């Protein structure tokens, strides 16, 4: 028994040390870089700065005519509308697909589930947006994010929907509730637990997305937060301190989310992965 305890203690110590070295040092590095002077940051050392430069942070916001402020606004709008749109459209679709289970619905489901695997065709999408005159618009960007994440959202919803008994709907119908009312007043509110998961996962995914805005939402006014990082590299080659301040600013919303919803995020990722 004593031997077992000692083994556990060694496991604890080794585990914490290895984790600290591998997973905390990179974040510590980001942070110290962000509060150094330009010259000191260029040395890329991990040591604590000789003098603190917290003014890097307001400077990042002012940089390039308040680019970061615009980026936060764009990313917030994109994330908000993607999450809201997906929350409703996928719930409606998953509800009918799960409840009807006929040939048509099985077909629709298997086509949509292809989206979990196959990649989007990028240039034909741009071409189509151009011919519809909605290229470089927030509307089209939101639609694309919704389209790309619809398979995942329907899959999560459908798995959860199976646990809701349809006696509820029968009862509501006998009480004279119409079909739209049954969905909006009875089913939709019952989906809250899985919606919380979806909001977080889709929110993080959309906020952190770099590739899709790169292709579908170019232009200085359309800049998103991830684009600001990329722009830094080309615009201020040697101001590493500002680059890292930008990284920290953009990562802080995720850190806050993580500290509040830690358990829910982990549970959601497992649910999403295993159901597939």
């Amino acid at each position: 028994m004593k031997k077992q305890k000692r083994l556990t203690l060694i496991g604890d110590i080794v585990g914490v040390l290895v984790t600290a070295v591998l997973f905390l040092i990179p974040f510590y590095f980001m942070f110290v870089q962000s509060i150094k002077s330009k010259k000191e940051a260029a040395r890329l050392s991990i040591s604590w700065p000789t003098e603190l430069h917290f003014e890097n942070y307001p400077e990042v916001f002012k940089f390039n005519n308040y680019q970061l402020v615009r980026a936060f606004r764009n990313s917030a709008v994109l994330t908000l509308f993607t999450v809201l749109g997906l929350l409703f459209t996928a719930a409606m679709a998953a509800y009918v697909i799960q409840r009807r289970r006929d040939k048509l619905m099985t077909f629709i489901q298997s086509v949509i589930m292809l989206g979990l695997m196959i990649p989007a065709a990028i240039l034909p999408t741009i071409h189509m947006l151009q011919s519809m005159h909605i290229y470089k618009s927030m509307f089209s960007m939101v639609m694309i994010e919704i389209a790309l994440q619809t398979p995942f959202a329907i899959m999560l919803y459908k798995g959860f929907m199976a646990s809701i008994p349809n006696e509820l709907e029968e009862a509501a119908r006998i009480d004279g509730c119409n079909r739209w009312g049954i969905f909006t007043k009875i089913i939709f509110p019952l989906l809250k637990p899985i919606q919380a998961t979806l909001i977080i996962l889709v929110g993080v995914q959309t906020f952190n997305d770099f590739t899709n805005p790169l292709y579908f939402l170019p232009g200085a006014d359309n800049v998103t937060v991830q684009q600001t990082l990329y722009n830094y590299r080309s615009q201020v080659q040697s101001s590493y301190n500002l680059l890292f301040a930008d990284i920290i600013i953009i990562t802080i919303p995720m850190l806050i989310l993580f500290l509040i919803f830690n358990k829910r995020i982990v549970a959601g990722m497992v649910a999403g992965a295993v159901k597939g």
Partner: protein
Amino acid sequence: MKTKNAKNMYPIWFVLPSVIIFGIFFLWPILSSLYYSLTVWNFETAKFTGLGNYKLFFSEHAMSSSVIHTLIYAFGTSGLKVVLAFFIAVFLTGKIRTKDFIRSAVFFPNLVSMVAVGLTFSFMMHPTRGLLNTVITTLGGKPIDFLGDPKLALLSIILVDVWKGLSISVVIYIAGIQSIDKTYYEAAAIDGATGWQALKNITLPLLAPAQNSIIILSLIGGLRSFELIWTMTGGGPGFATDVLASVIYKQYAAGFYGLSTAGNVVMLVLISIIAFPLQHFLNKREEAIQG
């Protein structure tokens, strides 16, 4: 009669918003990509060239090698995640008291964007001043050009990808381990099985469903990956780390839209011929193991 009523309760038009958005913004472009990949295309005119783009794609080393790199990247990241995550998950489901801290620390990189992770590590892997090389030279080793050496660059990015994405595999494994009935282990202990035997004969087989999810997820993710590679090396040095997704972007930036779309179709075919049979195979194996 009853089933008919039941069907009437669920109006088909409820699926329309999803189907329309998915159809227009995802499915239609994929279908039309099959045609545009056969053309010389500048968005205004599309001149049919047959398989010209594909021939060019596979005859130019800069592009054809991207298929190999994509495969190395996908199988490398997937393999490392499957194996490493298993041991971490076993470790974290043991009697360790600090597991909440360790799990949180391992998990957080998941929420940080690929671009932020890529930039941070490209500085830490700087050939002379980077943190990793400072450690190596302090210990008396020779500095390593992690991202500048064509032989090493892809491997370096693979390791960063594993660092960032490992935790999803870990939490899937943990969920799988926690759902295993404890009585199996008690019975095995009574029969005198060692910890290693229990791990091999109970934990591993019963984790097959979790493992299959991890393999499929990480493999598809690897075959599509772009952001980390693009921020760390931009496909360089030379074309040493160019993958399908970065070739698609480069040909787009260069104005070769038909060629870029052909690359897109190559990626689609590659994922299809790997992912679908693999999933079929893994499901069969899962049934065989679990009887």
